[in-house]
């Protein structure tokens, strides 16, 4: 946490600073994705879609945001 009220997280392997207290749903939307069409893992635990609005991002969080793509 810093004076500018941001926290450092890693999203899909990349470091980013995001606003302190932001929920995962807000973060996903801010990145330009529809929270209904992705799945999110936080520190190796799946975050149920129903709680994405309630879970606040914390300093040091490792987030994975995934979707379905073509595959065999």
């Amino acid at each position, binding site marked *: 946490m810093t004076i500018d009220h941001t926290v450092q997280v890693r999203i899909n392997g990349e470091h980013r600073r995001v606003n302190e207290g932001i929920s995962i749903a807000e973060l996903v939307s801010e*990145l330009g994705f529809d929270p209904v*069409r992705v799945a999110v893992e936080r520190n190796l635990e*799946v975050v149920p879609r129903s709680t994405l609005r309630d879970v606040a991002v914390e300093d040091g969080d490792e987030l994975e945001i995934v979707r*379905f793509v*073509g*595959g*065999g």
Partner: protein
Amino acid sequence: MNVENPVKADRWSVAGRSFTSRLIVGTGKYKSLEENAAAVEASGAEIVTVAVRRVNVSNPNEPMLTDFIDPKKITYLPNTAGCFTADDAIRTLRLAREAGGWNLVKLEVLGEAKTLYPDMRETLRATEVLVKEGFEPMVYCVDDPIAAKQLEEAGAVAIMPLGAPIGSGLGIQNRVTIRLIVEGAGVPVLVDAGVGTASDAAQAMELGCDGVLMNTAIAEAKDPVMMARAMKAAVEAGRLAYLSGRMQKRRYADPSSPLAGLI
């Protein structure tokens, strides 16, 4: 069975879900999502496999597979392609379940990049964990009747032996073991991987398999949409041939025209 349309009346089911089409197609390797969607349509498939991958954070506007193939009309079967350990596969499927909201998944745990042969020790371990967590895994495996039995005992809802290595197009290499798996299984058996052309798919069905899963054979054909139609026809033809009970083989000729009345 309905004589007018025997294929339509002949449904199969996996984990309580019933389907008409016995062809499952992958959605990888297509030139475009449009071509992919057209091939799925032509194949008549009701299930498609999909992969779970990171979103591209730097480009949120990339087209989505779900915009082209509607998951409300076609059952998405999330896979674990690219996973080389049970833990990676389990992690991937937990995310897939959250993304899709269903438990029916395709498990594959690969042993090495060169052959993409399954690692059966890890596959079996992953199957056990997934079943405990409420998943219904359809499991990619070696064409080994004992491994197939072990997977079924562990709770696999379908057994999916390879016909040949993934993406090889070599066709079914060991018809004897595929048939042994079919005879021993109490759950659906689908040949997954190795199909190269229509006759390979027909052969899988003639061996009594419940279905066939393929990706590259369609996606890498010069005309994928036409090949998708060919595969649909081949799976139906093979299934009908299996159900009809083929003639016995003989070592010598047996004339088809009557011998009586010869001039």
